[in-house]
């Protein structure tokens, strides 16, 4: 059973969101990193890029597959995690902590309401098995 912290919101496409004021930090779930296997390459948006909810904005590549990361929320990218670009395995080791991917300044906080709670997401994650 994968780790699904209660304090985060989730998307059906396996991203998590941690909200702090009008900024949101985004990463992929423990379940997602587990399915992908060892990550070898990560491609992040650039600071200043606009991202749109449900649109692809990053790529995480494992030895098995290169998968798109769909932004769970819309806004402008204000920070990216350079550490995971240099050492993608951090996402495998600590997907909710040091393995975050990027943060955005939210352009529409009502989008957060459409995201899943930990409980709901655990249902989605279980369907994959």
């Amino acid at each position: 059973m994968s780790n699904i912290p209660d304090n985060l919101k989730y998307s059906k496409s396996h991203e998590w969101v941690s909200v702090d004021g009008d900024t949101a930090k985004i990463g992929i779930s423990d379940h997602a990193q587990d399915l992908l296997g060892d990550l070898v390459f990560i491609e992040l948006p650039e600071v200043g890029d606009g991202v749109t909810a449900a649109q692809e904005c990053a790529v995480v590549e494992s030895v098995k597959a290169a998968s798109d990361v769909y932004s769970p929320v819309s806004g402008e990218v204000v920070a990216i995690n350079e550490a995971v670009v240099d050492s993608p395995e951090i996402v495998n080791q600590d997907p909710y902590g040091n393995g975050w991917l990027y943060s955005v300044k939210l352009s529409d906080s009502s989008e957060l309401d459409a995201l899943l709670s930990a409980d709901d997401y655990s249902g989605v994650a279980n369907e994959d098995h």
Partner: protein
Amino acid sequence: MPFVPHTDADVRAMLDAIGVASIDDLFDEIPETLRIQQLDHVPEGLSEMDVARVMHARASEDGQPLNFIGAGAYEHHIPAAVWEITTRGEFYSAYTPYQAEASQGTLQLLYEFQTMMASLTGMEVANASLYDGGSSLAESILMAVRANRKSKSKRILLPRTVHPHYRQTITALVGNQGIQIEELDYDAETGCFDATSLPDEPGDIAALVIPYPNFFGRIEDVNTLTDWAHAHGALVIGVVNPLALALLVPPGEWGETGADIVCGEGQPLGIPLSSGGPYYGLMTCKQVFVRQMPGRIVGRTVDLDGKPGYSLTLQAREQHIRRSKATSNICTNQGLMVTASTIHMALLGAEGLRRVALACHQNTRKLLSMLTQIEGVEAVYASGNAFHEAVIRLQAPVDDVLRALAADNVIGGYSLQQHYPEMENCLLICATEMRSEADMQAYADKLARIMEMRRTPAQTAQPKTA
């Protein structure tokens, strides 16, 4: 494995299983008007002996003309050993094998090929080849748009001195992908893009293409162009003749930091001339862009016992995994052509390639000087550098002259006005290492005679003055 066709009973059983009355019914969604009922022009079959007779007769119609045409496909000597080895059963397949790692010999060969290409172009990584020169450039453009993350545009600067067929291929392959192709004109004096006319504020550009040599055989100012492109956030795509790189500065050393992607037509390296191919495309790039490079890449590794082995690598973005989001869905490699090319390069070695390239360069210069001594024939570019092609202008209709030469067993060159209307009666000529002094003299003599004959009747037709 024998090929066993379906029997009528097999076919009936399959049709019954899916509930269809006849095979024709499977095609009923194709409108009647588009379906050919009868193939009127397909003749009756012939026996093997009759076919051989027809083929010999057709082949002899080609004759053995002296060829002075280049224009993207070049007649070079290919040692007999190249195709003798290439067509051995162990190598004789056009495809990367399925279960690729079971064919270590093929993978090792592809790995050697990649190493040779990386070394010739001065780049860090190479793929196992693409379909041909034109599609390798179209793929390079798509790759540059993906790889250039600083550029928000899909704007590509493409000199008109890039092979006209490649430019057509680009239109066909990337024309509907939102990519904006902007053609750069060339300077009539030099046959190259005029690097002094580069704008200071060109706007957002994804990539600049640099042909090397260009379609007219000319050497562009690659250092200035490369540094200018990089200064404005654009990637540099070199589209090269790999043989020329045996003599010229490799794209990896252009300007301050070198080209970013290199592609080109591999035919000059061991592939015989054949209309429509098969030829092959080459592609190399800087390591940082390797994940955006389409096609197959072979890597070297070690097995459990520490012995070297080869495997396909970086496949995560290929079409069998990424489907429609793959880096490319038309990136087949040309395994058999690459096999021949690798053996060809191995036999010639770096020094052999250099000597071939030099002989081509010297022969073309010699041919140019012979032809331009003829009245009514002039060199179009007086100065500057060229590899193994040159442009001449005739004071006569070029098509008529080419026809007269062909009737005399000489293929005189490539008429440029079909693609470049401003180059009326201009001919792109090439003399590879295959052309002897006597061959070139024969061309010069025949051309002199034709030009002379064209002048004489014109003079007699002039009204006599009293």
